[in-house]
């Protein structure tokens, strides 16, 4: 193991900083539970956003970090059953931000919001929340869920909503058992914390604001992940034991 030590020290530094940051300024809709003995595995709880199918739901997931984080992305796996086009049946989440950029820029694959070291757990969680309610059906991890989702969106079949609601109800029982009160209104959902005062490094520097493109842009639609084919027969994964 000693050959890993130097690599992991960078990861540990990044992870403990991120954890501290998330504890002082939480991401709304998430709880994070980390065993300080192993910073490479995080347990997160996700509250279903109000006014969506997932309202009131409490979904648990595990985030695992590689030893060379933040240069390589973590993986995320739901431990609560989640019927969703971008979640494999074994719970693995498939989302572009958790993938390193593809090798060949000429291959025509659009590189949309791929992992690079400027990303963080915070940006991952924000992407997950937005993906929950707006699945990316162009490269589904769960094809059945994807087809069902489309039919539900077209108002031709309510099955998708039924399954999700059933899962939400099941998850509520778990939340109750664990003594967790899931926020159901937007007011409760939005975490109350004072945004830190920007210690304004920018003061006195005059930059031209017009860069001609929009950094906020989210284009999940154009995402073209390579998900969806590789893991179908590989689901008997019970690797949750480390927690």
């Amino acid at each position, binding site marked *: 193991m000693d050959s890993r030590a130097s690599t992991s020290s960078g990861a540990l530094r990044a992870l403990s900083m991120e954890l501290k*940051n998330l504890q002082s300024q939480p991401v709304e809709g998430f709880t994070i539970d980390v065993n300080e003995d192993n910073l490479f595995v995080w347990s997160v709880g996700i509250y279903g956003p109000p006014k969506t199918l997932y309202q009131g739901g409490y979904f648990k997931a595990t985030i695992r970090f*590689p030893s060379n984080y933040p240069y390589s992305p973590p993986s995320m796996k739901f431990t609560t059953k989640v019927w969703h086009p971008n979640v494999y049946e074994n719970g693995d989440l498939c989302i572009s931000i958790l993938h390193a950029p593809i090798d060949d*820029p000429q291959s025509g694959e659009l590189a949309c919001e791929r992992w690079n070291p*400027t990303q963080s757990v915070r940006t991952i969680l924000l992407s997950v929340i937005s993906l929950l309610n707006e699945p990316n059906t162009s490269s589904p991890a769960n094809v059945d869920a994807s087809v069902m989702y489309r039919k539900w969106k077209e108002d031709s079949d309510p099955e998708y909503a039924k399954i999700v609601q059933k899962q939400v109800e099941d998850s509520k029982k778990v939340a109750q058992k664990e003594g967790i009160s899931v926020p159901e209104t937007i007011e409760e959902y939005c975490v109350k914390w004072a945004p830190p005062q920007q210690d304004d490094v920018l003061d006195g*520097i005059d930059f031209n604001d017009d860069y001609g493109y929009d950094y906020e842009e989210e284009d999940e639609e154009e995402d073209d992940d390579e998900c969806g084919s590789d893991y179908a027969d590989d689901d008997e*994964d019970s*690797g949750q034991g480390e927690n």
Partner: protein
Amino acid sequence: MANDSDENKPTSTAAMTEDDLLLQDQQLKQIEDEQKASPLVGDKLPFYALAGLYDPVSAITFFTKANELAAIYSDIRFIRGDGNCFYRAVLVGIVEILMKDRERLIKFIDTGREWMAKLVKLGFPDWTCSDFCEFFIEFLEKIRDGKYTEAEVFQNLNDDGTANYLLMYFRLITSGFLKDNCEEYAPFIAEGMTLQQYCETEIEAMWKEADHLSIMALVRATGIRLRIQYMDRSEAPNGGYQHDLPDEADNVTPDITLLYRPGHYDLIYRNLVAQ
């Protein structure tokens, strides 16, 4: 060592599941073990070490060129071929200059602060990017304040945890420079990709090799004068072709000289006695 650009691309696969991650960790371990033979940044060796890598019979072209170049260059530092070699060679070259030139060091620290503010302004994720910048600035400040011996500086440059954090600063300002000069550089981006996407996936991501555009951007962003000495199979007089950046015409002594062999950069030093 001659052509090792592809050996460390552990993360370029598509879907990362937990199983992948475990496998990837094992592969990383294997790669790391293999690479322990070659450090991130090698010691300064006599330039003749380069010729020693080539068989005088089967690799006669490279062998001959290496010997020709040895008349011009006295030393070489081999850089690990992990896709970061260009950025790492520049990082090491710059740090070596700054250790000897206090005025430039102080200026470089100031520029680092300006870049940190500028990156945020350009829309880079504030929290992570500022951390990379601060780390780099602190490193330089420690050199400024005499807290590191030269040996300790190189220890840091050879420690994955530290060295790759420092390296990210150079990737970020390369990307920042292109984004800041978007109009000028966007036309050079291959079709089907925006400059923003190019920066995020080809420059800001680790283990991605630098191409001509990113080389130009880093040279401009740091204000260094860079010479690239090419050593490939093409016929060229005096050991090979060389290229000066940012301006071919100005013909001044470069700050840093890199040796380019197909797919890889190392840091080389001119023979001062012969000049």
